[in-house]
């Protein structure tokens, strides 16, 4: 709640600063002999407003991170704190309970000890709330006054605002990078814990997967943590079967749509194809499990494979392939269409057929986009969970027979994390190790693809 107040305060002050600065710039403008300023009044206004809002936002971000800690410290300094259990779960529960009552989120306390902390909590919360508001106001005023005093008729407010905007854009792009880094670090942390219990050799090269979340966590049976069947299942379903379906179909439809289809047909077919990408994967899962998988089983049995199961890697892979056709075709379509008409004309004028032109000129020139689309599709297929759960089962199985049931890394991550095991059990932690390997593999794939494209692309600029 206090956070909302601080943000509203910042925006209100920013608006006030904006209006004041604009009014001031207008007085400059009226006073100047030729009615001109170095920058438009609105830039003066934005300059002051940004100087008010940005420092406040930074303060609020920092404050909301440290304020809860300060409050808790203040509470622990109260005389009642001596009665608290020294460590762990119970101590935390009592504090949380007291805090909930103090902020009005709960009506009464369950644990009598917690009642003693309600009052200290209430005091500390309100004290730090006020401190937050006062500091916010102080920062806003200081920033605003500093900026306001710099306004002059020849002040280059526009250039400054442009610089600030650039900094904001930079910060926005850093968010994505830092998030990736954060994900990576948290993964590494848990993975290291897991490898402390199960050796990486057993994990990476073992061929039997069947962690038991109920087993004694102190002494895990490393032979049950062999992830090879999962990696194989992921590769087989996501990168082999699905790609055998998606790459030719996607590429051919892109070629047809860009080179042969008349514009009216293209206007219909392209959006229709892209709808495929919007279908929820669980719906594909139904289709795979209820229609495709039984059909494949019946077909396999009629061919004499009596062992064919109703949950098969083939069914999941086929449907996954259909699902990612739009990723391949849409990117390929865009990059083929982006090859300059001059290339096409040049080839046709040599007496090449449309087909030769596509194979020898357009596709080499469009290769980066095509490969990017395929990489996107593979990452999407490798990360896909729902279809596999429904059509290819959750049983790990190391087999090259597409008619057998298989499972993938992501399915097992879900299974391990949603199981009954406690959070420091190796079965649960194995999910992080799986995620880590998946992350590294996709990273490596992307890296290799980039290098390959760089080596073979035919740049037309």
């Amino acid at each position, binding site marked *: 709640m206090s956070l909302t107040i601080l943000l509203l305060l910042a925006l209100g002050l920013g608006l006030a600063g904006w209006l004041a600065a604009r009014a001031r710039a207008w007085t400059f403008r009226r006073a100047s002999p030729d009615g001109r300023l170095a920058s438009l009044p609105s830039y003066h206004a934005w300059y002051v407003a940004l100087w008010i809002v940005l420092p406040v936002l930074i303060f609020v971000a920092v404050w909301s991170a440290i304020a809860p800690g300060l409050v808790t410290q203040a509470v622990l300094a109260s005389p009642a704190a001596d009665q608290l259990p020294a460590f762990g779960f119970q101590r935390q529960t009592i504090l949380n309970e007291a805090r909930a009552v103090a902020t009005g989120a709960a009506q009464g306390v369950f644990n009598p000890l917690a009642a003693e902390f309600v009052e200290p909590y209430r005091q500390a919360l309100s004290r730090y709330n006020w401190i937050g508001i006062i500091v916010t106001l102080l920062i806003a005023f200081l920033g605003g006054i500093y900026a306001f005093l710099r306004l002059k008729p020849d002040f280059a407010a526009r250039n400054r605002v442009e610089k600030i905007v650039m900094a904001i854009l930079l910060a926005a792009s850093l968010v994505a990078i830092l998030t990736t880094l954060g994900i990576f670090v948290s993964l590494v942390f848990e993975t290291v814990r897991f490898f402390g219990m199960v050796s990486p050799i057993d994990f990476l090269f073992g061929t039997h997967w069947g962690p038991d979340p109920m087993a004694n966590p102190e002494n895990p049976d490393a032979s049950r943590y062999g992830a090879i069947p999962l990696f194989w299942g992921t590769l087989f379903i996501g990168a082999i079967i699905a790609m055998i379906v998606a790459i030719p179909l996607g590429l051919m439809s892109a070629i047809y749509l860009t080179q042969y289809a*008349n*514009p009216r047909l293209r206007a219909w077919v392209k959006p229709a194809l892209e709808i495929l990408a919007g279908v929820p994967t669980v719906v594909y899962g139904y289709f795979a499990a209820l229609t495709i998988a039984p059909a494949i089983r019946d077909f396999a049995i009629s061919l004499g494979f009596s062992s064919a199961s109703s949950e098969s890697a083939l069914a999941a892979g086929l449907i996954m392939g259909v699902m990612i056709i739009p990723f391949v075709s849409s990117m390929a379509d865009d990059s083929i269409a982006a090859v*300059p008409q*001059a*290339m*096409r*004309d*040049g*080839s*046709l*004028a*040599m*007496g*090449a*057929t449309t087909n*030769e032109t596509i194979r*020898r*000129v357009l596709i*080499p*020139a469009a290769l980066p986009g095509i490969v990017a689309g395929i990489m996107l599709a593979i990452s999407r297929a490798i990360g896909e969970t729902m279809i596999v759960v429904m059509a290819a089962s959750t049983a790990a199985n190391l087999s090259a027979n597409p008619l057998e049931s298989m499972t993938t890394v992501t399915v097992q991550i879900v299974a391990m994390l949603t199981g009954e095991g406690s959070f420091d059990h190796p079965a649960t932690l194995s999910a992080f190790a799986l995620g880590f390997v998946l992350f590294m593999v996709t990273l490596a794939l992307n890296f290799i693809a980039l290098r390959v494209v760089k080596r073979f692309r*035919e*740049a*037309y*600029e």
Partner: protein
Amino acid sequence: MVTVVHPNLSDTDAKMSARDVSVFYGDKKAIDDVSIDIPTKYVTAFIGPSGCGKSTFLRSLNRMNDTIPSARVEGEITLDGENIYSPKLDVVQLRARVGMVFQKPNPFPKSIYENIAYGPKIHGLAEGKDELDAVVEKSLRRAGLWEEVKDRLQDSGTALSGGQQQRLCIARAIAVDPEVILMDEPCSALDPIATAKIEELIDELNGRYAIVIVTHSMQQAARVSQRTAFFHLGKMVEYGRTSDIFTNPIEQRTQDYITGRYG
């Protein structure tokens, strides 16, 4: 209004002939009733102000207008007496016989060698690596580019300068040994020195191939061509020997254009 054709042209044999050719983009008529004989051994220049249809007419000579869905050609155009718009004719064969060089140099984003080898490969003109090497060298020599690029045939064609790129495109066109070469303002994207080199090249190719060049520059037409056709508003106004067109035009509009009164 009829085209004025100078009477002293009758001595030349025609490689390509157009009879009553009109070209439409949708409902718009871009070329109106043009008839012309393009000689075997000379350079023919099409001149005229922007939008007069000279490029459109040039592109109809090797059916490049086919790539524009709304374009439609009426009348008859023949190559060695054979109608190029006849359904029996293979457009791929036609374009191998009637090559084209474009306004903006458009080498493929491949190596210099591959750019030249492209045409011979798709038409199966060379058997084996040695023969292909020979074709590449011969074409580059004819285009006057061999000395400049012989040590870097594997470099990308797009890494060359604009003038070299355009000569590469000419070399690419002659690699399939065409009978006619169409040039659509081949120097408009080049600086004067590169332009001079291309003009020199056109002079050297003259006689070996029938060459048709569209140009904005009247000086260029006067320098490189022996026949000139003046186009205006989709019509061919006057056609004759270049020397006659520039010194003794019959039509008033030709006179006005070449003396710089408009265009």
